[in-house]
């Protein structure tokens, strides 16, 4: 039972254009969402996060949107750069604060390729 799903295994985008990566979840108890980026042979690195009390969070070229009613979040990268080519994982946390002990549920990832 996958509670976090990234239904697009891959996405190909031209440099300079927008990349939109999508993520759906089923558990309404999730209260915090994160995006991680992963290069081959490396561990995932944190990119951006959003609390369930917000619907948007922006950090430079990266913006995460959260639609709680649809249980959907998306990561927008504008403009996309070749260095953004990586696997992007969506993750969700249930509970709040220290009591959750940071138990994250991950999606299966989307491979983003940005062509020069």
């Amino acid at each position: 039972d996958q509670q976090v799903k990234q239904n697009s295994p891959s996405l190909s985008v031209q440099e300079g254009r927008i990349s939109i990566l999508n993520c759906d979840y089923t558990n309404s108890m999730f209260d915090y969402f994160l995006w991680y980026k992963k290069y081959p042979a490396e561990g995932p690195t944190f990119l951006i996060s959003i609390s369930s009390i917000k619907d948007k969070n922006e950090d430079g070229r990266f913006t995460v949107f959260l639609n709680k009613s649809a249980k959907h979040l998306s990561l927008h990268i504008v403009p996309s750069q070749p260095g953004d080519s990586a696997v992007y994982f969506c993750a969700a946390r249930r509970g709040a604060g220290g009591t959750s002990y940071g138990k994250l549920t991950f999606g299966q990832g989307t491979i983003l390729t940005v062509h020069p």
Partner: protein
Amino acid sequence: DTAVSQTPKYLVTQMGNDKSIKCEQNLGHDTMYWYKQDSKKFLKIMFSYNNKELIINETVPNRFSPKSPDKAHLNLHINSLELGDSAVYFCASRVSSVTDTQYFGPGTRLTVL
């Protein structure tokens, strides 16, 4: 200066063997984790320790035993390895806070023959 390190990076072994993977973090974090990335690419949490105390123990065969000698180390020992244990294992750490930014190690690719 590596924040979260794992050794070894690659591990190839025969079925039935016992092996260990080591993890160390120099971030001063309180909480450490082991994740398994299987062939379907899902990252699934296995264990978590907070200040050397086991706090998350997912449905994992008891052939897997984590050990935390101190706050900076979380090792994973696997007994009687099986073919299905082949995966990439990631260690991660987190400073206890309201956010859950976890810092991951580079991963250990375990192949059981």
